[in-house]
């Protein structure tokens, strides 16, 4: 069954140990091209670790990661980003020494290419590249509705807008696979609703495949096509949202801990 679908990402047998903690124990995880795949699980289940392994920030002790049929297991993070795997972070990683616009322009880094000499001497190639970069960045800021804040220092944005900024920066690098780590954490209901729409549009209008790690079950059930459940570093279920809600093992895993996020 898994062979029939067209998977953009497929991880096999991932194992990650941190000292004594087994964060992932033989995880298989596949993402269908064009889908919004949710990854849920209690705190400490290993969701962030899985995203880290996919984006290359943590090396798996065992297992392989395949992206678009290519084995990327040992590729460094920036090369994965260049080939189209981009993510956001649970604890925001904004460039706090830059304006909102510059943050997004940095996201465009790989889409504009001019050399050091071009920048030192401000050649026409530099100007061309910068103009394009500026246009790309403006477009993403319009997209997340932060255009009026473009010259604000990133530190001065309210928290909710910082999440959007990170999203804009990620989208600006034109990924094919976008990994979102708890993008709704800390957002209010209205902001979360808005975010849900944005994620849908990212998939529908840009054709970007999305992996969504999230604790907000409403959001997950509303927008995802498929849900994978991790518990104690193991995949305990993978199904469509409706079935997941009924799955006794999943219910048990969630009852086993206090929901405090």
């Amino acid at each position, binding site marked *: 069954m898994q062979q029939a679908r067209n998977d953009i990402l497929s991880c096999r047998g991932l194992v990650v140990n941190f000292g004594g903690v087994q964060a992932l124990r033989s995880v298989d995880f596949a993402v269908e091209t064009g889908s919004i795949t949710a990854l849920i699980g209690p705190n400490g289940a290993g969701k962030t670790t899985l995203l880290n392994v996919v*984006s290359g920030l943590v090396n798996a002790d065992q297992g392989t990661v395949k992206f678009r049929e290519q084995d990327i297991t040992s590729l*460094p993070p*920036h090369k994965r980003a*260049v080939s189209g795997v981009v993510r956001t972070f649970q604890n925001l990683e904004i*460039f706090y*020494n830059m304006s909102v616009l510059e943050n997004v*322009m940095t996201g465009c880094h790989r889409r504009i290419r001019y050399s050091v000499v071009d*920048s*030192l001497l*401000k050649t026409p190639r530099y100007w061309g590249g910068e103009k394009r970069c500026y246009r790309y960045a403006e477009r993403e800021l319009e997209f997340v509705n932060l255009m009026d804040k473009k010259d604000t220092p990133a530190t001065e944005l309210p928290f909710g807008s910082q999440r959007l900024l990170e999203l804009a920066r990620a989208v600006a690098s034109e990924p094919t696979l976008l990994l979102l780590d708890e993008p709704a954490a800390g957002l209010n209901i209205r902001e979360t609703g808005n975010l849900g729409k944005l994620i849908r549009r990212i998939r529908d209008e840009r054709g970007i495949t999305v992996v969504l790690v999230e604790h907000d079950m409403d959001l997950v059930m509303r927008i995802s096509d498929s849900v994978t459940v991790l518990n104690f570093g193991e995949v305990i279920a993978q199904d469509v949202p409706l079935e997941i809600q009924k799955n006794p093992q999943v219910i048990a895993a969630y009852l086993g801990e206090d929901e405090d996020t």
Partner: protein
Amino acid sequence: MYGFKRDMLAVLGFTFFLLIIPRILGNDYYINTLTLSLTHAIIAVGLNLLMGYAGQVSLGHAAFYGLAAYTSAILTTTYSVPLPLGMMSGILVSGVVALLIGIPTLKLKGHYLAMATLGFGVIVYIFFNETIELTGGPSGFGGISRLQVMGYRFASDISYYYLVAFVLAGVVLLSLNLIHSRIGRALRAIHTSETASQISGIDIAKYKVFVFVLSALFAGVAGVLYVHNIAFVAPGSFGFNFSIELVTMVVLGGMANVWGAVIGACFLSILPEFLRVFENIEIVLYGAILIVFTIFLPEGIAGGITKLFLMMKPKRSDAAGKE
């Protein structure tokens, strides 16, 4: 975009200012001090690219300054290599050594780089002192020829001052240009979040090595300008204390501010002229500056001035950012 015209105007204004200072002062007594402070400013601007923008410390930049100075001095004096070739080699040696040191250490976190550059600086200093046949040892050697370009000999102190002023203006302009490009953004990104930089497709190791080598090249330029001005070279000018003085210049002037580095360099280089007791307290003073500025004014003098300006000016609307 990015106030390019503003940068150009500022650099032109700065150059003009440098050119008229000697007239304002009216006597030649301070010219050599001025030349030396501009020479230091060249290094500080480069070090600021590394420290202020990319967030990587070097505690051994005096070594790159010294390597270039010694290389050029030895080649042109002992081996009678033509001046331009000797100077080029000096700068090149600094760059190549930076590349060799930078590749292993810059792959790692900031601490490693700081410590490795500290060690490197100490070692190069030992080397200058110990290879007596080559460097003349602790007492150094003189008789180095003064700069001469295409038959023109920079014989007077004032002509040399103008030369260094022009080179500094060029270095400042190039640095401003670099900062306002995708490369500059990448460097600043590395400063705040290496992870997020990688995720944006930035090869952090490559950029760190690049800016390290670039800053070493600037130090090299300053080194050859220095040695063919003073016509004498000794290890004392390139020790650990000078490396720290360079770091202090950057912190004092303002990290991540090209003009700040210039201000810091001039301030610290001219200060001793007015403080006769300076020689004994300088190191304590540097320490105090580093601690106090990092705690209370991390933007440095330049950042403080900018803040003051912004406070005095009524807030402008967003549209003002565009050109």
